[in-house]
Structures are given as structure tokens and as C-alpha cells.
């Protein structure tokens, strides 16, 4: 991860202020164990050679708690649950705009207002005990800050949503997809399944021992699927999984909201029963 500041880059270590060199540098080297600010503009961030994207805010090093990994977690899961030492701070408006751009770029109108309200609500909910939200789809995808749109400004002028827990949402839609996974991979997740069928939110797994219904999200994440599988065809070495739409199928279906013609309040009422 590399960063660059178009203005003056500064690192704070307690009260000590150090000016950083201009130009690209690794985030790790720039940050050290301090806090870095870019005066005069946003940070530009480049990850693994991808195009640069703006991060208007402050990066800080925040040590991770010394916590042993939970039993039964894979190294990847353990790493994800442990958290990251890099914490980024911005405004709620820029964060919501960034998440909206990452989760559903180009969304406008009432669906954008509703989703912005949900994103702002979820920003207050703890997903990693004692730590900020992550920037992956486990929490809300965040790939940098963006300029708040009129819909976001409108959403943030409304009262906070009267909910306490996490409000899930997903991209939805009816775009068909199909992927192949090895039988071994499917077996590792679903056991000796003979048949897989889903309804968009749950997956029915048929084995010789009986039928089990499991939540879509566990299957979707473990098998890296775009959405909930509706069908699984077992072939010689592979399993052909197919479905329609993207995401875990829980909460607000953003694509359906976009097409609905409903107001933001009605969209939230339909998805979560939140507003009259």
C-alpha cells in the first residue's frame, strides 16, 4: 500500500511533528507507529498497483489487542477477526459517500437516500469488539472517500434510524451468474452433499443422511460466490453453482429498491420495518 500527499505530508508522534518526503511512499513507512495527515488535499492511496484513489482523512497506527484466535477459524478468518493496525478517520459524510461508491456506484434517487441512511446507521454499530469497522464487505466496503451527493446530504439531515443492531443490505438484482468449484472445495464447506438448492436467503443441502437448511452467507463467503446459489449441479470433478443477483440476500435489496419507485421511508419500511 503506497500513499502520496499532494500538499504537505506530516507525521505526528505524540507532540513531535515530522514532515514526510513528497512523492509515493509505503503506508507502513510513512505511518510508523504515529499518525499521518495530508495538509492541502486528500491522501492518494495505491494498493497493489491499482489506480490511486482519494482518502481524505487521517491514518493512525493503533496496536491490536493481544487476543488468541478463536477455535476453528482458518488463518484468513483469524487475521480478519483480529483486525488491522491501520485506522483511517474521516467525516461521516465522506465515509458514507465512499461506502456508497464502493457498494453501489451510480445509485441515485430515493434508493440512494435510503441506503445512505443505512450506511450511516451501520457506521455506529460495532462489528469488531473494541475496534472500528473494517473496510471489507464483512462490514461495509470502503475503497476511499468520495464527495457527498445531494442524496447523502439529505439522508444525513434526517434523524438517525431507530434501530440498534446491524442493518444488512445487498446489491440484489436478477443478473444470472454461474461458477464452478471443485468437489473437494464444496465438500469442505457442505460435507458430502448430493444436491444443493437455494431460495435466495438459505441453502438446502441434501446428503445421504438427510436434508439440512443453512444460511446463504456462510456458503457464499466460503465458496466465494457472487450471490446465494439457487442450484448446484454435481459433475465429475466439479460442482456448477448458479444463481441470480449479488449479495447475501438479507435486509435491503438495493437493486429492487432502485426499481421500486418507493420513497426512502417506504424502502426502509419494506426492508426492516423501521418507519411508518
Amino acid at each position, binding site marked *: 500500500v503506497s500513499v502520496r500527499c499532494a500538499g504537505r505530508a506530516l507525521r505526528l508522534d505524540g507532540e513531535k511533528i515530522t514532515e514526510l518526503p513528497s512523492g509515493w511512499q509505503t503506508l507502513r513507512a510513512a505511518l510508523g507507529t504515529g499518525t499521518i495527515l495530508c495538509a492541502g488535499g486528500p491522501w492518494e492511496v495505491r*494498493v497493489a498497483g491499482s489506480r490511486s484513489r482519494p482518502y481524505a482523512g487521517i491514518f493512525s497506527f493503533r496496536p491490536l489487542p493481544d487476543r488468541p484466535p478463536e477455535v476453528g477459524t482458518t488463518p484468513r478468518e483469524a487475521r480478519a477477526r483480529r483486525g488491522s493496525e491501520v485506522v483511517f478517520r474521516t*467525516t461521516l459524510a465522506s465515509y458514507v459517500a465512499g461506502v456508497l461508491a464502493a457498494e453501489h456506484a451510480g445509485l441515485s434517487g430515493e434508493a440512494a437516500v435510503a441506503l445512505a441512511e443505512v450506511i450511516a446507521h451501520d457506521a455506529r454499530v460495532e462489528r469488531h469488539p473494541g475496534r472500528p469497522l473494517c473496510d471489507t464487505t464483512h462490514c461495509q466496503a470502503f475503497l476511499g*472517500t468520495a464527495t457527498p451527493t445531494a442524496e447523502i446530504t439529505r439522508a*444525513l439531515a434526517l434523524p438517525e434510524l431507530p434501530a440498534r443492531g446491524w442493518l444488512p443490505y445487498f446489491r440484489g438484482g436478477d443478473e444470472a451468474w454461474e461458477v464452478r468449484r471443485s468437489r473437494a472445495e464444496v465438500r469442505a464447506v457442505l460435507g458430502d452433499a448430493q444436491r444443493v438448492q437455494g431460495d435466495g436467503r438459505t441453502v438446502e443441502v441434501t446428503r445421504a443422511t438427510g436434508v439440512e437448511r443453512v444460511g446463504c452467507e456462510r456458503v457464499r463467503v466460503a465458496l466465494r460466490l457472487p450471490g446465494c446459489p439457487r442450484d448446484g449441479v454435481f459433475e465429475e470433478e466439479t460442482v456448477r453453482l448458479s444463481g441470480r443477483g449479488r449479495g447475501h440476500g438479507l435486509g435491503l435489496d438495493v437493486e429492487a429498491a432502485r426499481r421500486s419507485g418507493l420513497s426512502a421511508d417506504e424502502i426502509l419500511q419494506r426492508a426492516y420495518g423501521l418507519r411508518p
Partner: protein
Amino acid sequence: LVRLREIGARRSELELHARDAGGATCNSAGDSAMRGARSSTFVCWISLALLLGGWSPPGVDGGAARSEERLLVLSRHSGEVLAGKDLTVHALEGNDARALADFARIESAAGRSPPRSAADLVVRLEDDRVIVNDPRTAVPPTARGDAPAEVQGWLAPTA
């Protein structure tokens, strides 16, 4: 003589506005005395030049610039301009309000005292914002979107 009277009147007016705005006063050395304001730190200082001789930056003096134009609100979290626009100032820390606000943002993040010399402007530090303005300028209220938001960064590549 008329000029000196104008300067004196303006100085009194600015000090009055500073008190009205948040209970802080600036002494003749530019130091700020803190009062009130539990949730935010209110810091002000008035131009040493104005206090000592009434100097104002070019293009601003004589009412050439209207007070409603003399406002810049910067986010302490994102560093973005939330309201107003940049304007020329004459301060040790920079020649424009943006640089001055950035300076105040950085100094406060480092736990240091904010800058103490500027043109005839007030610099105020709130929980979420740095405000550089003419004390007669109306400042927009804090919005919910100005609050901080934090994420743990894995900083995934763009798909």
C-alpha cells in the same frame, strides 16, 4: 487621526464579537484565555498588526471584502473544506485561510497550542471543525455528517 479612530473602533468591535461568540478573549500579546465552551475548545486571536497598528491585508481593508465572504470551515477529520472559501490572510503560518486552518488542525492534532498570529480573523477549534472567519460572519451549524467515522484499513485493491 480619523484612521486611528477607525482602527480603535474596529478593534473594540472585534473583541466584542469574540466574547459574544464563545467567551474567549485575546490579550494584547495574542494569548488566549479560555472560558466556557465545555465541548469545544474556543481559541481566538486578533491580528497583532490590528492590535498594534491597524494593518489589514490588501484587498480586505476599507470594506473592500464583505464580511459574509470571509469564512472558511475545514474538517478536523478529513481536512476538507466544509463551508466557505479560501481567502487571503496575512499570518506567520500561511498566506491563505486554508493554510492557516490546516496549521491549526495539525497543531491541535499534535496537542500543541494553536497559531497566535493572523490577520483580523478569528480561528476557532470545535470538536469536528476548524473555523477561520471574520467574527461578524455567520458560521453554519455543525452537521451530522461532520462527525468522525473510522475504519480499520485492509485497503483492498480496487476490483
